[in-house]
């Protein structure tokens, strides 16, 4: 589904990614771990099409299309969903209106008719339950005055609404207490199926207790320096990132 | 209330510590201003014909202009015919080092607590000392000379580097720019000149201490600093004036010119005599300061701590002509008693991707009026211009005023301009917290005010920052509102 080859990228003249190779198939969950500043969030940003990041080398193929040529909205319409680490607050735009616009624009792109108000509300009610989010929250302006946990739940709610092929969860666990973490993880797990894939970007192993990955990759200095199964995450948790750093230094 | 008044009383009754006279015999021009005065000054300084013509042109323009009325200041009309436009210390000296400087001068600096010797020993600051309009001592010249840096009095520059003067004098502040700039152009006495050649980072901070000394002497300084491509200089200007009953006019012009990749950092600490507690006397400080970022990626940064003068009228500005050029203005202005300050900056964005930053901290106490007046102008072709302005006012007591007059004019749709202003007072809880920790009220105020002004003070070179902190505390001791 997703093939990243030798991806190199920089932001404001600073080289961050130094040649990433990654292949993600439908039905898989990949975890990307690494110490602070290793390039995890940059990778997520490049995938979602943030303009401040300049890709200098390499390619990203998504379902046979060159992802790098697509605008952020077309990436979303092709099925890429980014759950932001810091979801932006947008005063004056209600989540409901926002979701309706997004959903219908994506449907239009895919040649589907717009959802009418009734079916939209029906869908919304159904998906709200998945992430245990309250309707009153969704009537408010997007993320405005939301707590950290509410913002993350709102991200997963949107994921449930848009049913992406590839979801990227960027540090979704940061700032969540244990209950919120469980709710968010449950929501994600309910959305997992054989047709979609998930990339979980995280610093800690904690989230991976709930969203169990098929593969774990360790990012360091803008490169994937080690890949393995979920056991690798446990090993990292036990030994810390210095272990990886030393290994890289020795190599 | 009574406690506050008492504290205010104490503070306002404090005498100006820097008020004394130095016994240097002056060589004065007759009172008044006409073409002959201009000719007298020019002749006295042995200037070339072109400069006399330039002065005369400025004078004829000045005659047709009227004193600006828009500033938020009040003063009795200035009688320009009552002012002595030129006065030079009689001892004509050419000095190679500090040991040759008039000991009287050294004492003067020591009274200020900023002795040249001390500075020279501790910090390696080169000082071009100016007393009553004529540059008396220039030190470190040789060392700077090795790097090709020219740092000398303006008169000397006219003699030794006429091409540079001819090319750049008035290039940033044209003679008809404003009333006071025109006046300065006609009668400027002396000042400093500085040229940093291509690629040279000036290894030390260059410094001038201005003093206004003889009674009734208008001081008309002229400073010109040119930073050639890729060069850097940090320049310090400090001013004190002894106590006088009659108001003294000061109308300086400072021009900064940066070429491609060059940077000038210009810092001022001004503590001229502010007048007594009844508002009698004090300096009128009407200064034109402007920098031109002529080259791409050039930068000009103004930092000022204004604690003195009866009236301050001063807007150090940046013309951001080069693409990617940067202008900065950091200011602390403190007014007490009957002082009036109308100060701020202009950031004129002309080039693409230009950035500017304004941080202004006004502190008013007593019966003073403190105004910030600034303009951010984004011209039509200045795409992607950025500005952030922060203007804060602190009021101490209910007799003073704080005013903010920002003009924001945007002609390009890619600009991002943010302006914020707040007004506050020192919280009683803040003071109480300090008291509870055993800090005196005066020290607490000094502490809090310094904290309030920190963003600006941090921009000053170390030795200046210390002096500035002392001045802030001195001006405001006890003025808790």
């Amino acid at each position: 589904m997703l093939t990243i080859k030798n991806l190199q990228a920089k932001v404001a003249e600073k080289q961050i990614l130094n040649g990433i190779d990654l292949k993600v198939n439908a039905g898989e969950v990949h975890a990307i771990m690494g110490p602070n500043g290793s390039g995890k969030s940059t990778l997520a940003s490049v995938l979602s099409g943030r303009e401040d990041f300049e890709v200098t080398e390499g390619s990203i193929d998504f379902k046979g299309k060159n992802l790098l040529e697509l605008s952020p909205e077309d990436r979303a319409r092709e099925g890429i969903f980014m759950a932001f680490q810091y979801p932006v607050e947008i005063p004056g735009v209600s989540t409901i209106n926002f979701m309706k616009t997004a959903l219908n624009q994506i449907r239009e792109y895919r040649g589907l008719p717009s959802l009418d108000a009734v079916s939209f509300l029906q869908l919304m009610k159904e998906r709200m339950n998945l992430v245990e989010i309250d309707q009153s929250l969704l009537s408010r302006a997007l993320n405005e005055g939301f707590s950290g946990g509410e913002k993350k739940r709102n991200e997963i709610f949107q994921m449930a609404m848009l049913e992406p092929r590839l979801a990227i969860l960027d540090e979704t666990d940061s700032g969540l207490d244990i209950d919120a973490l469980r709710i968010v993880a449950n929501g994600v797990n309910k959305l997992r199926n054989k047709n979609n894939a998930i990339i979980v970007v995280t610093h800690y192993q904690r989230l991976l207790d709930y969203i169990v990955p098929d593969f774990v990759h360790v990012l360091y200095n803008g490169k994937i320096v080690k890949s393995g199964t979920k056991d690798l995450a446990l090993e990292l948790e036990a030994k810390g990132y210095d272990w990886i750093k030393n290994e890289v230094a020795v190599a | 209330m009574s406690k506050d008044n008492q504290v205010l009383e104490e503070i306002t009754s404090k005498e100006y510590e820097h008020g004394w006279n130095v016994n240097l015999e002056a060589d004065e021009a007759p009172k008044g201003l006409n073409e002959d005065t201009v000719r007298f000054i020019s002749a006295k300084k042995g200037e070339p014909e072109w400069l006399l013509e330039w002065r005369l042109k400025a004078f004829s323009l000045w005659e047709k202009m009227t004193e600006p009325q828009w500033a938020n200041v009040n003063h009795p009309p200035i009688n320009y015919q009552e002012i002595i436009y030129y006065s030079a210390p009689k001892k004509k000296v050419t000095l190679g080092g500090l040991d040759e400087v008039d000991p009287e001068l050294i004492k003067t600096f020591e009274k200020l607590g900023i002795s040249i010797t001390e500075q020279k020993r501790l910090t390696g600051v080169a000082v071009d000392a100016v007393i009553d309009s004529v540059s008396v001592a220039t030190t470190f010249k040789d060392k700077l000379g090795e790097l090709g840096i020219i740092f000398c009095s303006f008169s000397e520059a006219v003699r030794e580097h006429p091409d540079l003067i001819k090319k750049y004098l008035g290039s940033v502040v044209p003679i008809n720019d404003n009333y006071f700039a025109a006046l300065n152009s006609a009668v400027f006495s002396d000042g400093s000149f500085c040229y940093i050649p291509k690629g040279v980072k000036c290894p030390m901070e260059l410094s001038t201490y201005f003093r206004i000394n003889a009674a009734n002497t208008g001081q008309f300084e002229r400073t010109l600093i040119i930073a050639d491509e890729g060069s850097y200089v940090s320049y310090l200007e400090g001013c004190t004036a002894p106590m006088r009953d009659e108001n003294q006019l000061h109308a300086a012009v400072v021009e900064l010119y940066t070429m491609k990749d060059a940077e000038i950092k210009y810092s001022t600490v001004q503590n001229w005599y502010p007048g007594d507690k009844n508002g009698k006397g004090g300096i009128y400080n009407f200064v034109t300061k402007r920098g031109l970022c002529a080259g791409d990626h050039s930068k000009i940064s103004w930092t000022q701590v204004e604690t003195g003068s009866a009236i301050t009228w001063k807007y150090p500005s940046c013309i951001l002509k080069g693409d990617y050029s940067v202008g900065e203005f950091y200011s602390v202005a403190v007014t007490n008693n009957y002082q009036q300050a109308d100060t701020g900056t202009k950031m004129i964005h002309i080039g693409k991707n230009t950035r500017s930053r304004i941080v202004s901290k006004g502190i008013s106490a007593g019966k003073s009026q403190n105004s910030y007046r600034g303009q951010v102008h984004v011209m039509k072709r200045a795409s992607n211009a950025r500005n952030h302005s922060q203007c804060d006012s602190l009021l101490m007591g209910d007799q003073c005023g704080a005013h903010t007059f920002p003009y924001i004019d945007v002609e390009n749709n890619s600009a991002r301009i943010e302006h914020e202003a707040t007004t506050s007072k020192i919280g009683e809880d803040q003071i109480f917290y300090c008291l509870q920790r055993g800090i005196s009220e005066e020290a607490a105020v000094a502490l809090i005010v310094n904290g309030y002004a920190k963003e600006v003070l941090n921009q000053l070179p170390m030795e200046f920052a210390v002096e500035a902190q002392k001045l802030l505390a001195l001006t405001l001791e006890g003025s808790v509102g």
Partner: protein
Amino acid sequence: MNSTITHKDLTDEVVASFQEATFGEATLNREKAIQFLKKNGLPSTKHEEYRFAPITKSLERNFTWRNEVSPSSIKSIDEFLIPSLDAYVLVFVNGAYSTNLSVVNNLPGGVKVKTLSEAFEHEKEIIDQYFDKLVASEADSFAALNSAFWQEGIFIHVPENISVEKPLLILHINDAHQTQVIAHTRILAVIENNSSLNVIEKFDSIGNNPVFNTLSEEFVVGEHASLEYCKTQNDDRLHQVANTVIHQSNSSQVNTFTLTLQGKVIRNNFNITIDGEHCESHFYGLYLLNGSTLADNHTVVDHRKANSFSNELYKGIMDGNSKGVFNGKIFVRPHAQKTNAFQSNRNIIISDSATVNTKPQLEIWADDVKCSHGCTTGQLDEEAMFYLRSRGISESIAKAMLLYAFAADVLTPIKNEALKSYLDGLIAERLHTHF
């Protein structure tokens, strides 16, 4: 500021055009105003307060000065009404009050709404007390112009303890089918203690000749009284200088909203004197400009007494060749301690040739106050744009959504639902049709 730069010829012409006229009312005030006008003239753009508003120049170019009411053939006001708004309707046509078109029935007991000419005859006491006392006819030339030559006006009096539930809709209709229209209208509203009033003003022109209107309005708000005020300027022929002056007493409440969508040159001078303690006031404004409209909002919030609160928010979106100007002054006078005064001005420039000039101004003479102003000019938040796009929303729709959210925010304080939905519709229409 001291030097008023005059357009002498035009001023003379204007004054001369009224030479033959006889005015029944306020003769003394008129004479004073004429003297001021003769002395100071109409302001050019060299006048500090009119730096960006070349009104005088535009008047010179587009109008000929005659003292006459332009003819009109308006028979119905239906097209100018606000849908489903239940209101008393007062109608001016070309500056003259139209009794036929106005609908002012069943006013609550004691409430008086009449023409100023009638009031001068029958309400002498109140007129003497308030008329022409607030408006700056000795400081501003256009206020003086209005005070000198106003043709007709409305007098509104709400006695103590009366709440006027239905809004008063004042329609200023200019019929420029046959000739140019020059109209100088006036409003005086006195809301006594514990009473409330809701006023909505709307400006519309028909026909193709130019329209110039000066409007001077004085609102006196008593203790514990409240005023809701809304003005919409959506008239592409209009040259206008509106002087709106509000005087607040203890514990009064004022909410205002000014919406400017169209016009040639629009200047709103909006002065609020908070001359009482424990007042609460919200002043909101929105200018959505395109074409070559110039809208200049000058506001003054003058805190004269302690313990009051004011909050001012003006937003603007400039497209086409339009020019947005905002000048907001906050004064906190000595002894007005514990004042909370906030001001915010936010601007977005859409097109290459639109401009914005803003000058937020704080003048504080009291130390125990909380005051701030903020002012931004920029584009839409890039983070927000990216967020919307990353959910599959196209750039143009994302932009329209954010612009609408930015603008509609200012409608928050409007309580009347019919009015709110009308204004919301105007904003949505402008932003959607345009982007």
